[in-house]
C-alpha cells in the first residue's frame, strides 16, 4: 500500500507536518545531523522513509549533510536536509555550491535564538539575513516562512516545487514555535498533490550544454549516470560547465544566477493580505510573529485605527512590488520580528521614506507581547 501521502485530517506539530510534506512532495533522500529544534523532522523521516522507499542517512555533521543532498540531487532524487542556526551556519559553503551548480534541493532551518549556541530550545527569527546572505559571493535565494503546521506541510511541497522550477536550493525558514506547535493539518488526496517534476533535458545528447538556459533563464537538467558526461564545478563556468576564470565569464555566469530569480520574483513571491483595502497602517510580518500580530491588529481596529496585515510567505525574494505599492498609499508600516531588525532593513529600503516604518524588535526566547505591537501601531498614527 502506498503510504507516501497520509490523506486525512491530523493533529500534527510543524516539524511532523514538514516531514510529511517532504514525503508527499516526492523527497526520497534525506541527510541530516541532529539539532534542536529541528530534530523531530529527521526523526520522523527516519521512521517513515522505510515505508515509502526513501534513503535516510545521519551524517557526521551539517557540512556533510548539505554536500550529500547535493550529490543525491545530481543522482536524480529529490533531497532535503534540516537544521537550526548553528548547523545552518555550517551549511553555508555548500549552499553556495548548490547555487553555483544550480542544484534543486530543500534546506529547512527551524530557527532558535542566537548568536552561537544561544537558546537551543527557544524561538527566534534571527537567521533571516543568514538565509539571504550567509554564503559568500553574489546570489539570490528563495526562502519561505510558514506560520502554522498546515503551512509547514503545504510550503514544504512548495519549496520542492520552487527548487525544481528554478534550480536553486530553497530554504524553509521555520521558527521553533511553529515547529513545535500542534494543530490541525489537512492532507489532501494523493492525486491532488502534484509535485513539479524535474526540468529534464529532452533534446539530443550531443547538443546538451548543462548551463545553457531556457527562455526563463533556467537550464534543463540531466542526472549522473546517463552518459552525458557532464562536468559540474563550483568554479565560475561557461555553458558547458567548464571552468573559465575571468571577469567576462563571471559576469555571464553570476548575473544569470541572480537574474533567474530576480526576473521571476513576481512569480515566486507569495503574500497573504488581511484588511488592506482601507488600511492606513500595515503590519508586515512572517512566521509566528504574524500570528501574534493579528491580536494587536484586532485591538487597534477596536480603537478605530485602520490597520491591516501583509504576511510574507516568501521572505526572499522580498515582495518588493507589493510593499512598494502599499508604501505609496499608507501612513505607516509596522514590522515585528524576533530579532533586532533583519528583514526590517529590507522593508526600510523598499519603502524608501514614502511612509513611516516602525520595527518592533524582540531578541528571541519567546514571541512578542501583542501589546508591544499594538503600541507600535498606535504610535504610528500619532
Amino acid at each position, binding site marked *: 500500500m502506498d*503510504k507516501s501521502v497520509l490523506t486525512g485530517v491530523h493533529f500534527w506539530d510543524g516539524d511532523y507536518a514538514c516531514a510529511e510534506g517532504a514525503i508527499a512532495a516526492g523527497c526520497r533522500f534525506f*541527510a541530516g545531523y541532529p539539532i534542536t529544534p529541528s530534530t523531530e523532522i529527521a526523526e520522523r523521516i527516519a521512521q517513515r522513509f522505510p515505508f515509502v522507499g526513501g534513503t535516510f542517512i545521519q551524517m557526521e555533521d551539517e*557540512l556533510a549533510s548539505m554536500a550529500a543532498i547535493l550529490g543525491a540531487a545530481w543522482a536524480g532524487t529529490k533531497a532535503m536536509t534540516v537544521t537550526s542556526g548553528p548547523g545552518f551556519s555550517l551549511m553555508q559553503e*555548500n549552499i553556495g555550491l548548490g547555487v553555483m551548480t544550480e542544484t534543486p534541493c530543500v534546506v529547512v532551518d527551524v530557527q532558535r535564538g542566537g548568536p552561537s549556541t544561544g537558546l537551543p530550545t527557544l524561538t527566534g527569527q534571527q537567521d533571516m539575513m543568514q538565509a539571504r546572505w550567509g554564503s559568500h559571493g553574489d546570489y539570490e535565494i528563495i526562502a519561505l516562512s510558514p506560520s502554522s503546521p498546515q503551512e509547514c506541510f503545504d510550503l514544504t511541497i512548495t519549496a520542492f516545487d520552487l527548487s525544481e522550477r528554478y534550480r536553486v536550493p530553497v530554504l524553509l525558514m521555520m521558527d521553533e514555535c511553529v515547529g513545535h506547535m500542534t494543530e490541525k493539518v489537512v492532507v489532501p488526496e494523493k492525486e491532488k498533490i502534484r509535485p513539479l517534476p524535474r526540468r529534464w533535458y529532452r533534446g539530443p545528447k550531443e547538443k546538451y550544454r548543462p548551463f545553457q538556459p531556457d527562455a526563463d533563464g533556467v537550464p534543463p537538467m540531466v542526472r549522473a549516470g*546517463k552518459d552525458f558526461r557532464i562536468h559540474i564545478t563550483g568554479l565560475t563556468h561557461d555553458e558547458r560547465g*567548464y571552468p573559465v576564470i575571468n571577469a567576462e565569464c563571471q559576469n555571464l555566469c553570476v548575473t544569470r544566477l541572480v537574474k533567474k530569480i530576480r526576473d521571476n520574483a513576481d512569480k515566486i513571491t507569495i503574500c497573504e493580505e488581511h484588511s488592506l483595502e482601507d488600511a492606513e497602517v500595515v503590519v508586515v510580518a512572517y512566521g509566528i510573529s504574524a500570528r501574534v500580530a493579528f491580536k494587536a491588529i484586532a485591538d487597534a481596529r477596536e480603537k478605530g485605527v485602520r490597520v491591516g496585515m501583509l504576511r510574507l510567505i516568501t521572505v526572499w525574494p522580498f515582495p518588493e512590488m507589493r510593499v512598494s505599492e502599499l508604501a505609496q498609499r499608507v501612513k505607516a508600516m509596522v514590522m515585528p520580528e524576533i530579532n533586532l531588525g533583519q528583514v526590517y532593513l529590507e522593508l526600510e529600503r523598499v519603502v524608501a521614506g514614502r511612509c513611516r516604518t516602525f520595527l518592533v524588535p524582540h531578541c528571541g526566547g519567546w514571541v512578542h507581547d501583542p501589546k508591544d505591537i499594538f503600541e507600535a501601531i498606535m504610535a504610528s498614527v500619532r
Partner: protein
Amino acid sequence: MITEQETHPLDDLLRVDRIPHIWCPTCGLGIVLNSFLTAVRESGIPREDIVVVSGIGCTGRAAGYVNLDSFHTTHGRALPFATGLKLGNPRLKVVVISGDGDLVAIGGNHLIHTARRNMDMTVVCVNNFNYAMTGGQFGPTTPKGARLTTAPYGSYEHPFNIPFLVDSCGATYVARWTVLHIRQLTESIKEALVHPGFSFIEVISPCPTVYGRRNQLGSGLDIVKYYRDNSIVRNDIDTRECEIEYQGKIIVGRFVQKRKPTYLETMNEYLRQSVGEGFVPYQGPMDDGD
C-alpha cells in the same frame, strides 16, 4: 609542421578540449590520471556508470579532465557529496580523486566516517606531502622536518599514516603506491573499482614545483628516482608499520583486502528484517522519461 592531429589511446576518456591542463611539468598527477583512466578502460565497467568526484586542490582538478560524469565540489566535502550520489543512485560506481589535504585535513571527519560505514566507493588520495595549490603549506601528511611556507623551520607535527587511519576506521581495501609503480597502481585501481565497499588507495606523488623546490629535492625526475631507490613492496602488512619519514623508506603494497557488507547491503538487510513486510527499498532516481 605537424599535419596530423596527435592523439592518445585514452583520448576518449579525457576531456581533450580542456587540454592543456594546469598541472606543472613532471607533476605526478598526470600519471595518476593515466593510471585511473587505464584502469577504467580495462575494468570493462560501462563508462556512464562511473562518476568522478573531487574536492579542491591541484589533485581536485582531476574531475575536470576526465570525460566522465564528474563533480568538482568544495574543499574537503568530496566524500559526503559522493555518498549522496551513491545513495541517490546505487548503480553508480563512485570514485573520489582528491588530495591528502582535502581528504585527510579539512575532510578528515568525512574520511573516517565514510570508511566506518564501508560506503561503496573508491578513493584515490594523492599525497604530495603538502598543500600544493595554495602554494605549499604543510599539511596532515607532511613529514617532520620538511620545510614549507607555513613551516619555514620545518614541520614539527606528527603526520598521519593514512593507510593505518582508514584501515582502523573500517576500510575494506587499502593500498599505497608511488607514481613510479604505474602497473601496480593501475591494477590496484582496477581491483578497487570492482571491490564492494570502501576502497582506498594512497598515491605518493611528486610535487616538484612546491614541495620539491622548498626542500631542494631536485626535479620531478629526481623525486621519482628517490621513489625507485627507497620504496619497498610489502603486501598484507599491518598498516601500523607503514609510516613515512622525511626522505625515508616508503612502504607500498596492497595492505588490506577483505569483504564486509557495504553500507547499502547492511541498511537494506537490516531494515528488511526489522521493519518487516512494510519495508519498501529505495526505488532509484526519479523517472527522467526514458
